[in-house]
């Protein structure tokens, strides 16, 4: 269980955790959050919009505790409600994501064309074990210990005609097979992450 530190009421005083992860200085971050909140607050779907924007700005594409506390304080939304939302939707990450994201579609068309085999072989290839509690579950987000790759699944990309589909760093690749996927992942591994 990843328990954040308890004293969250004054996030601007906290610097340690996020600076170490290579984030921009907190002041700029909070200015950005303020700006997003000012833009959408009070409108339908505001909280989703805020969380999406803040996560997108994070270089590691995740939401950390101090960001959530800051949003709660600024919007007057209870902390527990924000945490409920963050953990409910598949798009939000609570952990830093890898340099490269490989997203395997688990839609029906992809499933009938072998996407589970792709997922299993990729997991083996990258030496990942099933996370505890995810045994047997298809929905997963796994990051390699070196932070290089994150494997995710998605319910459906809506690219069913190209099944099976894999998204490599936001590039859709259709008609995948194990060999082609291994090649693509190798190629990604060669790339330097800027």
């Amino acid at each position: 269980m990843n328990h954040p530190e308890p004293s969250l009421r004054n996030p601007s005083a906290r610097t340690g955790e996020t600076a170490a992860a290579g984030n921009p200085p907190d002041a700029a971050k909070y200015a950005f959050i303020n700006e997003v909140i000012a833009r959408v607050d009070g409108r339908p779907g505001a909280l989703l919009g805020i969380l999406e924007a803040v996560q997108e700005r994070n270089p590691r594409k995740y939401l950390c505790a101090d960001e959530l506390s800051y949003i709660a304080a600024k919007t007057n939304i209870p902390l527990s409600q924000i945490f409920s939302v963050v953990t409910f939707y598949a798009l939000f990450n609570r952990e830093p994501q890898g340099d490269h994201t490989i997203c395997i579609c688990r839609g029906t068309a992809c499933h009938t064309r072998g996407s589970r085999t792709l997922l299993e072989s990729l997991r083996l290839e990258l030496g990942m074990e099933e996370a505890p509690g995810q045994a047997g579950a298809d929905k997963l987000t796994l990051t390699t210990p070196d932070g290089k790759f994150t494997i995710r699944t998605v319910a459906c990309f809506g690219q069913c005609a190209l099944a099976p589909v894999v998204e490599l760093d936001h590039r859709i690749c259709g008609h995948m097979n194990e060999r082609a996927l291994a090649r693509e992942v190798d190629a990604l591994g060669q790339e330097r992450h800027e």
Partner: protein
Amino acid sequence: MSRIEDIGIFNAMREEGLAKVLPAMPRIAVGMGTCGRGNGAEGVYQALSHAIDRDGLDIRLAAVGCFGACSEEPLVSVWLPGQPLVILRRVQASDVERILNDLSRGRITPDLAWCKIEEWDHITAHLRYGQGFPELPLWSELPFFSGQKKIVLRNCGLIAPDDIDEYIAVGGYQALYKVLIDGKPESVIEQIKASKLRGRGGAGYATGIKWEFLAKAKDDRKYIICNADEGDPGAYMNRNEIESDPHGLLEGMIIGGYVTGASQGIVYVRAEYPLAVHHLARAIDQAREYGILGANILGRPFHFDIEMVEGAGAFVCGEETALIASLEGFSGRPRPRPPYPAQKGLQGKPTNINNVETWYNIAPIVLKGPAWFTEIGSTKSAGTKVFSLVGKVQNTGLVEMPLGTPLTKFVYDIGGGAAAGRTVKAVQTGGPSGGCIPHEMFDTAVDYETLAQLGSIMGSGGMVVMDEDNCMVDIARYFIEFTHSESCGKCVPCRVGLDQALEILNGFTKGTGTAAQLTLLNELGRMIRDTSLCGLGQTAPNPVLTTMRHFRHEFDDHIIAKRCRAGVCHSLALSPCENSCPLHMNIPRFLDLLKEGRADDAFEAVFLDNPLPASTGRVCQHPCDDRCRRQTVDSPVNMREVHRFIADAVLLTDRFEPLAARIAARKKAPTGKSVAVVGAGPAGLTAAFYLALVGHDVTVFENKAEAGGMLRYAIPEYRLPKRVLAQEVELIRRLGVKFQFGAGVGSAITLNELDEGFDAVFLAIGTWKESWVNLPGTELKGVLPALPFLESVATGTNPALGRKMTVIGGGNAAVDSARTAVRMGVDATIVYRRERKDMPAIKEEVDAAEQEGVKFLFLAAPHRIVGDARGNVRALEIAKTRLGQYDSSGRRKPVVTAEIVRLDCDAVVLAVGETVDLDFARASGLTLREAGTFVVDRFTLETSRPNFFAGGDAISGASNVSNAMGFGKKAARKIDERLMGAKRFAGLAGGFQYSMEPPETTSTSPRHRSAELKPAVRVAGEDEVMVGLTDAEAGDESCRCLRCDIRG
């Protein structure tokens, strides 16, 4: 750009837009939907853009949406003023120079051209492109588009989605303008009600009535919401609609806002659809700029705005109350209804939610009237629906069809059926809320009511086609896994019930399930359906309940026999090849033993798996080839010919004696039980071998003079030399199997005598009666059934055939007969009513026959046999056939035409299939099927008479050698279990140590095939055609195996 304040500005805008859609210069439009991009459309666009700039060409280049034919992407449409719009398919960047070059000469690149559009009905406008290119088919003449009626997709793939001018050019926003000018919201609601438009999101609630609720609700603020959180796996029409025509959605919503009195619209769209989000955001901006959104829309006193919210990945948010909770900043957990959103929705205000596609129907209904709409579709379900036709069909894509269209139309006419060599088994409709419809029910009309009756739903329109490679238990498990992971967790039935359902289904796929669990699963499914809080839970059991209803036998296979025929459930199979083999040979094992150079061990392992390895190595239909994963690299491992090599190297050499001794040494201690096997064909020989191996006293009764059945008497010498079979039979005899030849059961010995003399009886009498066809002229001299013909050749008496012979049929017996005739110096023609690809015969044999000079006449059905005055055959008259509707085998039915062709010939061989000897079967007193085959328990092979088991063709109808042997092996196991009260077959063929390490490297060589004799040499004699793999070839072939049996 100015705001549209009056009709004058509106019309001017329209003219401007038309100059973009139909410019005074050529226009090239690249389909840049996500599907197109996934296939390289961006590269095509860039190459076009670069070339046009570089050469300063007067060409208008546009990026449009998707035209729906996903399997043909990237699509590019090309228009020359005055000419039809031509659609090019599978265009790559490298084609661009050719396309432009041809275009500069007024030509269309012929190999890329797919179809043309002369005029297009945008519903809101009619566009004429021009006429010409007579060599190209019209789009509507292509099978994929046949019968499609594009209302929702009216603009998709034809206009640029990021340019409001093009939307206005094709009649966009006219319906809105009309509604605002008329100023009668109630009459619009009446129109929508009269149109019988129903919600396209799944539940199918009448849209007009929903609108009326909202219109009547009194509040200072009301909302309308477009549900674009399309999360059904297998459905992507909403993505395409928004990507390709975002203004069509906006127009529907603005009209909806006006007539219901709402001031705010919200589009809740999946964040996983970045392109749709991008186009929609741009469309909203443009609409605001043009005065179509915001205050005083189109210069009228109406204020309305639309916002877009990106959903963050939760399928349950498709549920309207969950979607509202999500918009309010909560996790998307549904709330109980009542209160309904129309009373208390978003922020407690009256709210109406409709699916994307529903909104697209609004403008057409407003402009064309409800009567026009109700004419399309079926009585209760008016209009069209967009379906995503995906999975195991040849043509995939988005298909808009009138409601009520039968499923056959989708799967076969539009989808083109399964890939070659496969058959369609089922269609899954409605995604995780829907169900699987078996192919026997493909006449089903696709509308709300009919699908519901079958336990499925239409849902958002996903249509996933499954073939025999899909396991229905796995499909049920897959959908439960999906809904399980998408369940919000609020109510107990869905949260815990789906978890338990998944647990049970996982057990089935792993072979640990029980029949009691199947009953429990059914009860659990009904409980979840009847008591869950929201639509997700209420419909989640549908995939399980429908598969249990329509594919119960597959559940039984998994639970009782621990088998997955599709080979999907990995725990139930050693490897895909093993699973597909009727004998379940451990193929990776013998390949590895050979690779390790252990030829003797390899032989022993092969023979223990398959006691006729040299024969099957020659004549097996090799289903393993179709399953081999090496196919994803190049071509399947030639497993059949490798085990033939392993077997030949022993059976036909001096290694025979020592290895026969090794196998005989494995024989278990005598049990004191005796078994009679009736029939010495492949099924009988196999059963006899295994029964003897486990220590029973086995006697085989055979009415012919030698053992082998069809192998001996039907399959010609040039395919299977008799000495090879004889050696296999000899090895089986060495195990102590006794043979009584010329001992016809029913004549020489009765069933009652067998019952008295033996502890168990296995009936493997095969199918030795040639089916007769009702054909004028079959009484003539020279008309021969195939089996007696082949049998007489096999026993050394060649019947007189004259100079020319025709063979009727398309199976192996037909091909064997023709090739045998050719070897007798007779000119042979095979007449078959379907096409070559439909022939049941082994493809290699058909090819070999052709090389040897056998002629083929396809699409030809026998009409009558013509004789002369002396009663001799003179000719066969055939009626040409054409292919009609698809039948339940997924093949098109041959339909006889009036065209008669006469084929002169001296003999006609009928090879139209074999059946059981009905006289014997009836006399047996056992329960029979209509065709005369024995009724047996599918899992134990027991007949209706105690201690009598049956297998092979006698229960399945004419099949093939390996299937018959599979039955023989299974019967031996079941008989032994019955006699000994224990499962003694496990480990029977074990005891071999071999590498279980994944191979570091595999051979990079392509598939090795046996060398064959030259056709001229072959027809001169009876020598075996296939000479077999060489030592080196077989060794290398075994190194091609990827070792699927080794798992991480």
